[in-house]
């Protein structure tokens, strides 16, 4: 019985580890194929991401201007796990988004990527894609 539980835990652990690695590799594909998404609305990319969707969205400072959001970092883990080596999809926007607009959604939904964020960011045009952890 003990052995069965141990095996189950190990299997679960490996499957989670595998899932982590899979997320990174899965997202990397979109970075490799970024040409398909650059100069297009983010919704194109989001629609192609059938396996996983962002859980949170964070403004990237990306310079010294505080009145704009030049890029957005999307994380795919729970919020508490987003501050260290989290798998990040960084989208640079063709036209930086006014900071007050991104702040509005942050304050409303606490950085979570809800349907409102999906609609809002979905219309923004992608300038570049970077996937990192």
């Amino acid at each position, binding site marked *: 019985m003990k052995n069965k539980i141990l095996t189950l835990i190990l299997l679960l652990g490996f499957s989670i580890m595998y899932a982590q690695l899979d997320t990174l590799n899965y997202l990397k594909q979109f970075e490799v194929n970024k040409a398909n998404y650059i100069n297009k609305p983010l919704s194109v990319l989001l629609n192609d991401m059938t396996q996983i969707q962002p859980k949170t969205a964070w403004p990237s400072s990306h310079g010294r201007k505080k009145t704009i959001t030049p890029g957005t970092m999307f994380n795919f883990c729970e919020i*508490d796990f987003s501050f260290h080596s989290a798998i990040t999809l960084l989208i640079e926007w063709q036209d930086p988004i006014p900071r007050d607009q991104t702040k509005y959604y942050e304050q409303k939904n606490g950085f979570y990527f809800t349907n409102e964020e999906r609609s809002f960011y979905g219309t923004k045009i992608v300038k570049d894609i970077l996937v990192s952890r």
Partner: protein
Amino acid sequence: MGEKIILRLLFLTAFMALLWSCRSEDLFPQESPAGSTENISAAKYASRSLWKEDEVYIDKVQQVFLKHTNLERFGITYGELHWDYAMSFGQFGEKYVLVPIVKENKVVLLMEAVREGSKVYFYEKRNEDLLDFFQHVMYSKIIKLDEQISTPENISAKALIYVCSTRTLEVGCDGEPGCVPYVKSVTSCGFQQGGSPPKGLDPSGDPNWGSGGGGEDDGYEYPDPLELSPCDKAVVNNLKAKQLLNDTKINAAEIQLTGTLSTDTNEKSFSFGKDANGNYNTTPIKTSTLGNQVGVIVTSNTLTIEGGAHTHTVDLYNCFSTGDIYSLQGANVANPKFKTFFAFADGGVAYALTITDPVKYAAFVAAYSAGGNLDMATSGWKTNSPIYFDFENVKKQFMYSGFSDDDAFANATALVLNKYNTGATLSQRDASGNFNSIFVNETTININVAGVFIPISTYSQTTNCNLN
């Protein structure tokens, strides 16, 4: 029988101990300062001060003094130095001490020993308040004491870096009827330049010696000055930052620079330094003409430049940009005296970026070159720089915790400066004009999620210096 004897002996021992403990009920029992026939001035130093003193410095100064003294003549001319009661009055870092000189149980003079670089200078100090204070410390029954450390409000441009210590003591009564305890308080702010030069004190005991403080202006060789720790340097840098912005000329330049900041669309800057007379002055104000990034003058024909200040217009983060971090290091290479950089933002906000270790700063820039890490177009970290995600992670967490964008950005900057051992540190001015360091701790723990350990970092502001 044996047990009874042992019990009696134990009672006797306890009784003797009780008697011994009752021999003095003074809060701070004073032993006779001059209980030996040996020359007190040469007695090995062991602090008997009631406060915390810079004992390393006092010990070294005594060594220097003994190397150059004629004890007999010194005793006749001045009296005996009571090193055990020497006080540094809140000054640490081997720079300042007052040593009482006693004749016939009366403190008649103080010897002020001031270190500047590798030299120590001796001066006479005849301040009646201080003499009286030392007299009580050495010969009265002290029942209460206190010390308050403060930074002076108005500091002249020539003043050295220092703090002020206000020490208070209360002298108790020996049971005399109608006696009211006596309270004595003195403030010392270390060595003060300006005004008439202090009278030098000759360790050899020559009373007609000059006013220069040691072979006229030569001073005496001081053995191996202690190297300040990065945290001590950060404290000194913060005091210096406050002093600089309190200087009349620099303050006027700040007012001029920031007068229209709320509506400015271009950054402005000035640099500051000392003129030939040792007074601070500033360079003319520069305004950015292209890309809203203003340069800072690093060297000048008329001033020995020590630093610069620039504005951040309202569309920019209040705190220093990545470009600013590289700019200060570049300025320091071109002019090693350039060690202080201010950023002024709307609403009276001021940050100071100061150097604690120029060698580390240069090593950081060598390891993380501007070409590879600084995005010249945005003046931020390049997204492929390893620093980028560290910076963003801190900023994310502070924003999530409810900090403003500006404060989250400043905390992220502070974390990077420390984590990457840059040799530079960040501080912010408060309502009193004091600069307070911003330190951020990073704590990483591994959380077990279904058997998989996932590292989680948390970042928190701390007032404890964590510079390496």
